Structures are given as structure tokens and as C-alpha cells.
């Protein structure tokens, strides 16, 4: 156990987490140049494109330190987005220390802080690492000052590196050995292992990633998941090298995997404790929470013929993403589909992109919603995340919506515009701290629903990209809700219905109408687009009819060319959704979600 170090790298997006991970992997010789692919830990295309890690990964790095002893450094990579903060916390709970990576040019950002707090909650050793010191814009002194003043850490403990250029890597490895405590635990005690991730392998079923705190586990053992209270027989245990490396056993202090014939990732819960069935530990490891989706939207195939394909793809997709849930749903306008739950907007984006890219599906997404809570006149309380299930307004006695605590860090020159944005988004109880010269941290409580709709884009835009944002859910609060319907030529398009705060209904209605107007092509008839609450029209736009489309002459009997043009048009029309006599393209459904600043 003395020769093991379990650590994570935590950082704000784009501060170089994956690059540093790659560099550590490379310099400890786990991968040679031939197998090395940039950013090994981020394996999905989407992750690489967006520069964020969505799924955790782990890898054991063999390292011979300057003291001449051989160590195993278990690097547990963490998801890098606010939507996945619970997963981050469970990964951190599996470590004894972290590298807190800070971009030398950008300095401390919102997620730097959020991650630091998570690490502190887990009593981890924190090693501040200033990255990208080779950049012309690097300002190391300023970052050291921030480490001191904004993070409250001892500025003398920092290391400097350029992961990209391979500068300072050796010092980091030495610091991991020197400063991060080795794991402690009792190998003789009953097994207690923390699940920090689970991934699906088509041949072996679910591969459970875990950290063993006490006891040990080997193949043949009967293990129990304490939350689910389910029992499985262990088939294989091992460590993570570049691929899985089978071992006889995992013991206290180890990070590794367990394969135990678990069919899907949904059968395990991240944060759950694994123990032995016949010799259980006294109580589960702390910190377990059952994570619940907070953002909901329906997915429909563009062509109803693709419904079966969509069903199969969703089934496959959930094998590897336990935080994504779905059930059958149907829309009058769009036919059969699925109601889905996501951890946040980014999660929703990821799911949508993967369905389109990896499974080749064309889908339409309904307007995302949070889960509202209604108290009815008869006293019953009902939760609604689907506008189509909005209660009869005459029966509603009260309504509540989820609130978040939004933490934003930004240069103070943007404070005015950010405060304006937050107020527009119904932000409350702001708290302002000056964290350093010219830098501010501002905290607002605001409805989660408000950040689903064009918040990120506008925040980025008003802070010119210098602001960073983090949030956590706090509670449900009383609200005054209404169901906003969108009508196209008098027909309700249920997939565009939204539950909104009554005060915001008119603005939201107008915005939705305007967006649709931009996206729906002119047709032979005037198209009226209306926003309505109950029977009352509160917003309206009109798409004028086109009046002429006949141009190409059919000269000299060349009719084929013209026919082909029309066939193409007809095909395009088939890819649109017909709402009454109006053809609505897929882009129109997406546009309703987008911000004005795009």
C-alpha cells in the first residue's frame, strides 16, 4: 500500500487536463509512440472535439521515483463538466490527492474553484499546478497570487509545467509520490469498495471501476451492491493499464475493475459500495447519492419509419450511460417517440450528437424542460417534466420549480452585464466577492429552467468568453407557471409546448415565434405562428407566402432536368414534418432552443 498513489487531475475546461494526463502516461512508458494517440483518456470523438471528458477513465502508471522505489500511480480521470459533478465527486472520493491544474494565461476559473471545493470536501492533498507556462500570454505571477488569495492555498506549494511541451512533468511525478499520502485501509477487514464508474463491454457486460478501501476481492467471490442489494459472482478483477490487465485480487488501496456478469450499467450505481455477500462491511462508504436527471426532452425520429431504429439505438446507448433514462412518449404532431431525462444541457447535447453520429439517426428534439412540482386543489402533489402532462390549470393550487446556485467568475468589468443577464433570468439573492484585483465572483440563486434557455451562450457572449460558470441544485421554490403552446396555422405543435414562468410567457412566446419564422421556409400559404396560453394568443408572427416559383423553362423538351429538380424538392419536403399543411424542417425544432446571440 505504501507504493500506491491514487490521484486525479482537476481543472477548468480547456486548462489542459487531458494533455497533462497524456504526458504523464507517455513519460511513465505505458504507451510508446506507436500506440500513443493524443489524449488517450478522452476516447470519444465528441469528447475530443469539445475538449471535455464525459466518462471517467482510469489508468495505472508504473513509476520509479528518485528514491529508487517502484510506485503505482493510479490516475483517475474525471468528467469535466458541471452536468457531471456527482461523478467527479465519486472519482475524487477514490483518491488521496489531486493535481489542481490552472491555465497560466487564464488563471483561476469557476470550475477551478468548484473542483477545489470538491477536493477539500474529500480531504484530499491538493497540488496546484500552473500549466501552459510556455504561452506568450502566460502570467505565472498573477496565478501564484490567485492561488494564495482566491484559492487560499499555500502559494509555495505550486508546480509549473507545460504539458504540451513536456516541461515540468518529472517534478509533477515526484510531487505525486512525495506529497500525496499513500492509501490507508485494512486488507483484513470486510470488503468495502467504492464504485466510481461503470462501462459497458459488449463481450463481458458491465466493467465496474472501483477503489478498494478495506478488505480484498478476487474472482469467485460473491459480492453485494449495498444500495441495490443485488449479489453477483466475480468473474475477473484487475488493474487498468492501457487495456484491462487481469490480476488475482484487488486489495485495500487498489484502484481497478471488477467484472461480475452485470448485464447493463444501469444495474450498478456510481457511488454505491461493493462488499462481500457473506462477510459484509458494517455500513456503506459515505457520499452515495442516487443521481436523478434534471433536464427532460422528447426525442422523435424525423421519419416515423425510423422509430424502431431509434428504439434499438437508445437501448444500445443506455448500456453505457446509466444517467440517461427514457420511456415511450407520443406526440400528436410528431408521432411515436421517447421522453428522456438528462443530467443537464450538455448531457442532452452529447446524447443527441451521439445518436445522430454513431447511430445515423435524424431526430427531432422537443423543447427541454425541468421537473416542476404542482400541488393540486385536492392536496395531491404531482411532478411534471413533460408539458403534455401539464395539469388542468383549474385544479392547480400551487406550483414550484427547481432552483440552482449559480457561481460565476469573471473580470469585474463585465459585472454590470452579467448582473443584468441574471436578473433577466430571475436571479435572486446575489452575493458578490472580489477574489483578486479586477476579478469578481458572483453567486445567484436562479431557476434551473432559466439556464436551459440561451443562458450559456449569452453568458459567454456578455463576458466575451472570460467568464466561467458552475452550478448546483439547491431546492424547489414557489413559482407561477403557465403552459405556453405554439400553434402553426392554428394547429398546436405539442413538441414545442413549454412550461414557463407566467411573467416570461409573452417574451418566450415571441422569441419562439420569431425563431420559427426564420427556419420555416415560405410556402404557398401565409403561415400564422402563434404562442398561446390556454385559449389566449399572447404572441404572433406571420410567414408570408411565396408567390412565384415557376422559372426554368422546359425548352426543347428538356423535361427530365426539371423533373429531377422537383423530385429533389419533393424528397426534401418528405424530410420535413407536416403539421397540417405546413412543412416544418428539423432545424425549426432546434432553433426554438437557440439563443438570439447565435
Amino acid at each position: 500500500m505504501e507504493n500506491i498513489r491514487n490521484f486525479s487531475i482537476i481543472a477548468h475546461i480547456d486548462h489542459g487536463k487531458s494533455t497533462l494526463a497524456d504526458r504523464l502516461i507517455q513519460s511513465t512508458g505505458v504507451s510508446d509512440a506507436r500506440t500513443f494517440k493524443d489524449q488517450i483518456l478522452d476516447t470519444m470523438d465528441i469528447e475530443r472535439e469539445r475538449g471535455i471528458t464525459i466518462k471517467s477513465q482510469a489508468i495505472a502508471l508504473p513509476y520509479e521515483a528518485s528514491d529508487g522505489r517502484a510506485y503505482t500511480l493510479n490516475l483517475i480521470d474525471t468528467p469535466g463538466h458541471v452536468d457531471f459533478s456527482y461523478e467527479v465527486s465519486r472519482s475524487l472520493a477514490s483518491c488521496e490527492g489531486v493535481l489542481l491544474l490552472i491555465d497560466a494565461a487564464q488563471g483561476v476559473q469557476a470550475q477551478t474553484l468548484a473542483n477545489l471545493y470538491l477536493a477539500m470536501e474529500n480531504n484530499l492533498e491538493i497540488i496546484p499546478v500552473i500549466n501552459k507556462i510556455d504561452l506568450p500570454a502566460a502570467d505565472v505571477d498573477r496565478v501564484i497570487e490567485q492561488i494564495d488569495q482566491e484559492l487560499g492555498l499555500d502559494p509555495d506549494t505550486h508546480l509549473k509545467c507545460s504539458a504540451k511541451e513536456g516541461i515540468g512533468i518529472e517534478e509533477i511525478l515526484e510531487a505525486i509520490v512525495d506529497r500525496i499520502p499513500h492509501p490507508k485501509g485494512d486488507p483484513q477487514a470486510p470488503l468495502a469498495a467504492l464504485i466510481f464508474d461503470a462501462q459497458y463491454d459488449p463481450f463481458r457486460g458491465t466493467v465496474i471501476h472501483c477503489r478498494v478501501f478495506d478488505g480484498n476481492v478476487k474472482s469467485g467471490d460473491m459480492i453485494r451492491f449495498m444500495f441495490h442489494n443485488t449479489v453477483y459472482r466475480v468473474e475477473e478483477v484487475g488493474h487498468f493499464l492501457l487495456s484491462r490487465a487481469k490480476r488475482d485480487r484487488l486489495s485495500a488501496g487498489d484502484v481497478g475493475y471488477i467484472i461480475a456478469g452485470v448485464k447493463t450499467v444501469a444495474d450498478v450505481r456510481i457511488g454505491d459500495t461493493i462488499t462481500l455477500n457473506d462477510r459484509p462491511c458494517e455500513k456503506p462508504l459515505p457520499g452515495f447519492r442516487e443521481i436523478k436527471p434534471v433536464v427532460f426532452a422528447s426525442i422523435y425520429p424525423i421519419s416515423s419509419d425510423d422509430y424502431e431504429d431509434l428504439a434499438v439505438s437508445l437501448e444500445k446507448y443506455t448500456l453505457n450511460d446509466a444517467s440517461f433514462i427514457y420511456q415511450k412518449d407520443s406526440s400528436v404532431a410528431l408521432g411515436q417517440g421517447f421522453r428522456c431525462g438528462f443530467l443537464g444541457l450538455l448531457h442532452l447535447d452529447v446524447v443527441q450528437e451521439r445518436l445522430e453520429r454513431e447511430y445515423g439517426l435524424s431526430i427531432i428534439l422537443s423543447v427541454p424542460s425541468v421537473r416542476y412540482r404542482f400541488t393540486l386543489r385536492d392536496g395531491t402533489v404531482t411532478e411534471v417534466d413533460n408539458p403534455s402532462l401539464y395539469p388542468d390549470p383549474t385544479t392547480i393550487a400551487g406550483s414550484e420549480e427547481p432552483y440552482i446556485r449559480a457561481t460565476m467568475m469573471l473580470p469585474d468589468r463585465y459585472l454590470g452585464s452579467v448582473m443584468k443577464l441574471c436578473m433577466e433570468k430571475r436571479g435572486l439573492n446575489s452575493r458578490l466577492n472580489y477574489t483578486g484585483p479586477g476579478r469578481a465572483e458572483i453567486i445567484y440563486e436562479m431557476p434551473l429552467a432559466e439556464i436551459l434557455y440561451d443562458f450559456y451562450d449569452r453568458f459567454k457572449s456578455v463576458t466575451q468568453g472570460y467568464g466561467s460558470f458552475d452550478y448546483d441544485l439547491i431546492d424547489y421554490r414557489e413559482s407561477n407557471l403557465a403552459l405556453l403552446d405554439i400553434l402553426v396555422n392554428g394547429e398546436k405543435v405539442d413538441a414545442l409546448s413549454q412550461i414557463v414562468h407566467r411573467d416570461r410567457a409573452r417574451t418566450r412566446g415571441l422569441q419562439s415565434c420569431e425563431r420559427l419564422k426564420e427556419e420555416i421556409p415560405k410556402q404557398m400559404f401565409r403561415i400564422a405562428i402563434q404562442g398561446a396560453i390556454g385559449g389566449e394568443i399572447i404572441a404572433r408572427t406571420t410567414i408570408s407566402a411565396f408567390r412565384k416559383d415557376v422559372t426554368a423553362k422546359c425548352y426543347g423538351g428538356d423535361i427530365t432536368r426539371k423533373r429531377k429538380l422537383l423530385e429533389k424538392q419533393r424528397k426534401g419536403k418528405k424530410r420535413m414534418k407536416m403539421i397540417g399543411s405546413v412543412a416544418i424542417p428539423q432545424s425549426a425544432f432546434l432553433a426554438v432552443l437557440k439563443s438570439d446571440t447565435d
Partner: protein
Amino acid sequence: MKTLDHGNNLPGLYIHIPFCRSKCSYCSFCSTTSLELIDDFLSALFTEMNFYESSFGRFDTLYIGGGTPSVLSIKHFRQILTHVQKTFRLTEKPEITVEINPVDMNVNELKALRHMGVNRISIGVQSFNDDILAFLGRRHTGSQTRRTIADAGRAGFENIGIDLMYGIPGQDIPLWAETLEKAISCEPEHLSCYQLTLEDDTPLGKRRRMGEFLLPDEDRQYDFFMRTSTILEGAGYVHYEVSNFARNGNLVSRHNSKYWNHTPYLGLGPAAHSLAEKRRWWNRGSLAEYLADIHAGKAPVATSETLSREELRLEALFLGFRTKEGIHLKNFNTRFECDLLEEKAGTIKTLQNSGFIRIEDGYLRPTSSGLAVADSLSLI
């Protein structure tokens, strides 16, 4: 209304003359200015005629188009007509049209054509405005054009058609109306009014892509279209097809009407299209390829297709909606086993209520504003 249906379904013969003295800046049709190839071309054309000697019956129309047929001499025309009559049979009173360019032919040459049996002349006027003619790269002026029209009348032509163009950069609606009035004062039997459309590979198409000028937007196109219809119908012309107007129902282009109702036609010369039953084919697009094939002893066909019923049906719809006469519901039902009134009842009702179509004498007919959106109507 008796317009397109002349009571016969006899095929039409088209001959493409791929020569011009100069290339107009908007034109993407097959033509060359290498006039020295005319004799080669004609002998190839006569060979091509022989390929089809037995496969078509009597032709009811002959249309010599281009390019610019009027670059040919009277001797050439005589050779062509002689060869046509030698190879094929024509009906008793065929419609024989020749396209000419203003200034190419004097009154004597026109008389000679008339004596040969040509009974319809189609003059590529385009505009009476000299600035616009220059922009289009035309070789003639407005006053020369009026002289040619008058000459054609003096030469004995009783069916004179003129082609005009609208939607040209620099041309507003009053200027276009002026052109129309000048055209009307020449009292032609037939007018074709085309909206300028530009292929990217033409000189004007390139200039447009460079952003040198804009073509009218859809609202303005509509204004041009409707003004054209109003002015010409006011002057007594029948707007019988999207781009075509005739003094009366007997003066519609019999030849072009065949294209619009799937009557068979044989097209000879480069890039010419043909239709026989469900088969459509078209010739090699350049004169060089055309000549090469003929010299190699084979038909100069580039591509042929056999139209599926679905394809024919779509064509019948879009061609039908381009004509004032519209779609004969019973014939459509017989051909495609599709009762439009029943299958598209809802859509047709909406279109009727919106004033795009009407049902009349067993036809589904576009109104004037319906003609303007004929493409969309065909996708019902």
C-alpha cells in the same frame, strides 16, 4: 376553351441548329460560332435522320431551333426541308417553325422561307431597349428588330412569334411594360416571355456570382409575371402557358404543346431531346461529340431513360399545371389510376379556396397566380 389539344397526338420533329454568330451572355444552350462546320453538321444531321426513318410516323410539326437557325443560308434550309420530306412524312397542314434572329434575314430571304413551306417564324427579340440588348450581348437594336418583324409580315408570314425576356438587371417594371407595349404594337400572333435565369457557367452567371448585380427577388418576379399576364391579356392575348401567349387558341405553338402533354417528339442535332412512349433520350451535348458519334456510325445519344409511372405522373402534374388548360382529370385518372379529386381532396380544396386552382369542364386548372407557383402545385 380549346388551346393545347389540337385533336391529334401526332409526333413533332425538332431540329437543333447549334450555330450562332456570337454567343449571348446569358445563354447556356449548345451552340458554336465555328460557322465553317455548318456543312459537316448538315450532312451529319441527314445521317441522323436516316437512323429514325422507320421509327416515327407522320410528323405534325417541324421546329427548327437553336442556336441561331438564321445563320443558315436559304440553300441550307432547302436542303433540310428536302431531306425531312424525303426521310419522314409530314401531315397535310404541318406547322413549320423557324427561329430567327433579327437582322439575319432580309425580306427576300424570308419570302423564300415562306415559299418553302415554313409557315411560322419565331423571332428572338428579347427586348426593344438598346441598353438591355447590349447587356444581354445581343447583336441587334430595337429598331432593327421592328423592321424584321415587319419584313416577316411582308414576306407573307401570318403566324409570327416573338421571344421577350424580363427580370433583367437594370430593367424595372415600367421599362418592361414599355417593351411589352412596343411588342404589342407589332401585332405578333404569339409571344413568349421568359424570366431571365442564369446558369453559373454563362458569362452573366459568373458576373452575378461575383456580386456585380442582383436578379429580382421572388416578390419582384411575381410582379413581373403578373404584369406580363395582365398587359398581354388586356391586349387580347391568351396566357396559355407559364411563358406563352397567343392571339387566339388556334395560334398556340402546336409544336411546344407536344412537350407539355407527353406527345411523342423526335429531336435531332446536338443536345436535342426526344420522347417516344415511356422512353426519353437526349443527344450528345456538344457539336464535336455529336459529329464524332455520327462519323463512327452510331446514334449520337448521350443518355436515355425509361420513365416510370411515378415519373410520368410527376411530369404530367408539373407540365399540366404550367398550362392554362390544366390537367384533364379523367385522362389523368386513366393514365395513372389516380383520382386527384379524391386522393388530394383536402389539399385541392385549400388550393381552390386560396385562388390557385379551379375545377372547370373536367379539368384541374391553375389560375394566373396558380401558374406562378406551378412547381409547388405539382408537389401536391
